[in-house]
């Protein structure tokens, strides 16, 4: 390895990436350093993004959108953003350990684009948008267009993830994840559900259930249609089950050491039904409270 570049501003970071597109962006190190420690990767150089202040900021504009800098740690998301991004905050709490959450970032999850990245289902469920930056300028990519395959995405060699934009205040959200250990576990199946009371839509994001993080569009359509948005009556068992089945149907999971494809489908169906109920209960409660 020849270079270790430490920009102190976003422009400088973009210039470095443009000059040396082989530089591997490094923030919390939870993915990159493991590759290096085990000699699975020997990158040309590292681009340390931890000193770029712009990446560590978040803001809410017009009360509608949360712009979350790519370098905000999971620990801060849990502490600061439980109200604006409840599913993401819940997901953040399931990321690794406190030490990992102190360093790991959503930008890292996006950059790595592992199908099992814990932060990704909430971004999909809420219909978030990824903001990419380069010396050529900024561009916005819808989250469902961002991932192109297992650990593959639309990032161009000179681009960095600058931020992610999440809609806020639309309604209750849930995140759940299944793994064979009660902590410190990579998802065998993960699901985020987001209710948008205004547009009367249900969003569903799935992790570890397909070659890339995906939405469950049919299930979203079904739930959006089936929920009694006006009356606010409870969810019939058939509706929850149907929703679960549609979510499972959206998956294309693999068999691996962490779990079987059959189990992944089963588990996500269970989780989907449960989380729709939880989100709906909360929605009804909020509604009745006015």
């Amino acid at each position, binding site marked *: 390895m020849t270079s270790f570049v430490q920009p102190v501003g976003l422009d400088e970071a973009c210039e470095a990436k443009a000059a040396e597109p082989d530089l591997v962006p490094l923030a919390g190190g939870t993915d990159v350093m493991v590759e290096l420690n085990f000699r699975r990767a020997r990158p040309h150089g590292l681009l340390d993004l931890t000193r770029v202040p712009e990446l560590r900021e978040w803001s809410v504009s017009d009360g509608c959108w949360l712009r979350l800098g790519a370098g905000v740690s999971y620990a801060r998301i849990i502490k600061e953003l439980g109200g604006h991004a409840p599913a993401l905050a819940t997901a953040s709490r399931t990321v690794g350990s406190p030490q990992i959450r102190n360093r790991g970032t959503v930008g890292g999850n996006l950059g790595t684009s592992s199908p099992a990245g814990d932060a990704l289902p909430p971004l999909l469920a809420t219909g978030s948008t990824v903001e990419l930056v380069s010396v050529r300028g900024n561009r916005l990519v819808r989250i469902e267009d961002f991932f192109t395959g297992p650990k593959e995405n639309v990032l161009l060699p000179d681009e960095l993830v600058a931020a992610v934009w999440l809609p806020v205040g639309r309604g209750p959200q849930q995140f759940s994840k*299944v793994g*064979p*250990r*009660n*902590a410190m*576990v*990579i998802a065998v199946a993960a699901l985020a559900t987001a209710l948008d009371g205004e547009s009367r839509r249900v969003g569903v994001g799935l992790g570890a259930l397909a070659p890339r993080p995906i939405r469950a569009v049919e299930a979203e359509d079904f739930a959006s249609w089936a929920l009694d948005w006006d009356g606010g009556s409870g969810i019939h068992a058939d509706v929850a089950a149907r929703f679960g089945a549609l979510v499972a149907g959206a998956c294309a999971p693999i068999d691996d050491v962490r779990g079987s494809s059959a*189990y992944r489908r089963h*588990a996500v169906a269970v989780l989907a039904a449960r989380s729709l109920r*939880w989100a709906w209960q909360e929605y009804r409660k909020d509604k009745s409270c006015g």
Partner: protein
Amino acid sequence: MTATWAGQRARPGTVGTGTIRADAIPKSRGDFAFSSDLYADGMLWGATVRSRYPYARIKSIDFSAAAVMSGVRCVLTHHDVPGRNRFGLEIRDQPVLADDAVRYVGEPVAVVAADHPEIARRAAEAVAVEYERLDALTDPRLALSGVGPDLHDGGNVVAHHRIRKGSAEPAADVVVRGVYHVGTQDQAFLGPESCLAIPALDGGVELYCSTQWLHIDQDQLADVLSLPLDKVRLTLSGVGGAFGGREDLSVQAHACLLALRTGRPIKMVYDREESFFGHVHRHPARLEYEHGASADGCLVYVRARILLDGGAYASTSRAVASNAGCFACGPYEVPNVSVDSYAVYTNNPPCGAMRGFGAVQSCFGYESQMDKLAAELGLDPVEVRLRNAVGTGSAMATGQRIDGPAPVAELLRRVRDMEPPAPADSSTCDDVLMPGGAANTTHGEGVRRGVGYGVSVKNICKSLGYDDYGTARVRLSISGGEPVAEVHTAAAEVGQGLTTVQAQIVRTELGVRQVVVVPADTRVGDAGTSSASRQTWISGGAVRAACEAVRDRVLRIAAATLGAELSELWLADECVRSERTATDVPLAELLGSTNVDETRVFRHRQTFPLDPETGQGDGHVAFAFAAHRAVVDVDTELGLVRVVEIACAEDVGRAMNPPAVEGQMHGGIAQGLGLALMEEVQVVDGYIQNPSFTDYLIPTTLDMPPVRLSILEIPRDDSPYGLTGVGEPALLSCPAAVVAAIRDACGIDITRIPVRPEIIAGCA
């Protein structure tokens, strides 16, 4: 014999008192030197070239590219092994560096020394080994049936032990059958394999390493290096856990070879991934059982056929298979027994010692059967166990009469009668304590509680006629006007607290306050292994014997000096006390510059090999027993488990250092819980699929429940202070109890551990 006068026992730091480990503060400050922390001027780093195939002939090894890399000092292959290129604990069948063939993925083929660890690893990657792949034998059932290549001379059956007792055709009112599987568990000690080998001026080598048994390493290394024993000198370094995984050689021979070749100190440290290939694992097992019982639930017979996959080399497979067989019936009276236990060679990773040593696998089988029998008879699971529990005077399956304490029924009653934990309540229970932990998988949906029991037995100390002994040297001298006792053994402190117990024994026996435990090394006689729950008994016995010899000499000196009768003198409070004259002579005054130095060897009573046809005989020194009750909450839909509480009762004979005994029990329970729920080295066609802590999961703080212990102290009459070994029993029946509780919660049969969520959720 033992210093007996009252008051002495209660003094701090003596036997039976809660004693803080001397190494606890250094370990807490980061000042304690583990073998991976060692450093020597001019040292080089070693790295290992490993086989990529489960079975292949080595056609050539080309290390020319590696050898010319900048910073690379040497590359060694089997051609460079000066002595016998084989090691092994029971059979020396394992190459130090593979010669004609490799027999498992990860087998060492060459070693490299370089200035920097990264260069060494890159050089290892640059060694080109040309293989001719051979059809791998990875199914132990095929290996047993004789299908496939012979991986070693003499065929693939490493061990077959038979036990035949009573009638061959017993009649029973009820019969239950089952086939059970136990997955491959890893010791997963936190400190990966590491050592520092320093070439010595006399042509020998000084090796600082982590091991469970210095002298057996020395013995094997001397043969490998073609050096006399006195030129292979080992010192124990800080050991980051062992659990059986450090009985076999790993880095030791390679580092010594490199040190002797380069004339430079060599450090070797495995990373976590390499560690999964660098030591043996717990044998995976297939257990076929048939239990017959009378209508009132008394066992009539047990038939069992146990197959252990030993992997590519023998390691301790023979003894593990023997243990699995000997304890296949559990702590129960069984008049008619037919057990066959086997270990076979395959091209899977080698398996050997791990805490519980064969008795863990069997326990999952027989305890599952006892629950099945209880269900069949409509009996309470504890009741059916109580009806069959052995006691003192009972015969084990091997015909051996239990002459020591065997409070099996009492242990069961104790765990049964403990207050049950509060019922699950998602509204009051913190969400992280629900199945699924912090991952928000249930708010109570699908969660059912279950309770399960297990009880177990295992031998303590080595068995079957093995001449098992320990050596200790104790030296009493005066330093700075104070008596100081120095105790020196080769017994390995692996975390269990042995050095503390040694010091406690010296304080108890000699009544001195200052005790120095000298680092374990091979300058003193053999201590045997820190395994089989034996070291406190054996090396503790040797320390006590050496203390007695020291005390005897001190009193003789005093008798001569004071003109007193030996029988009227005592050693107490750092004085020699005369009963008759009621005078105290301080040791400092009495001994002056005289050192009293005694070495003693301690042996437990003799054991005997079992009859090869019937498996009958007095093969064991002692039996230890433990009982568990597990309470679990199971999310039956998702298959996720949260263990709510484990209760464990164990007879320890004498709690030498009570907090350390508790610590051993807690740790054993955690490993048992891991085996029940999550720990498995997954091997497919000979390849380990999960050699990392990302995918080999051990219990975290959110997986371990509160543990409730009940410790009995029924003294033995054949061990020092009446103690019995405590290293293993608390693990043995923990998996069985956890699985029984899961069955109780969700009503499904579970025949394999670790239990995967798939199985519980019914979608395997």
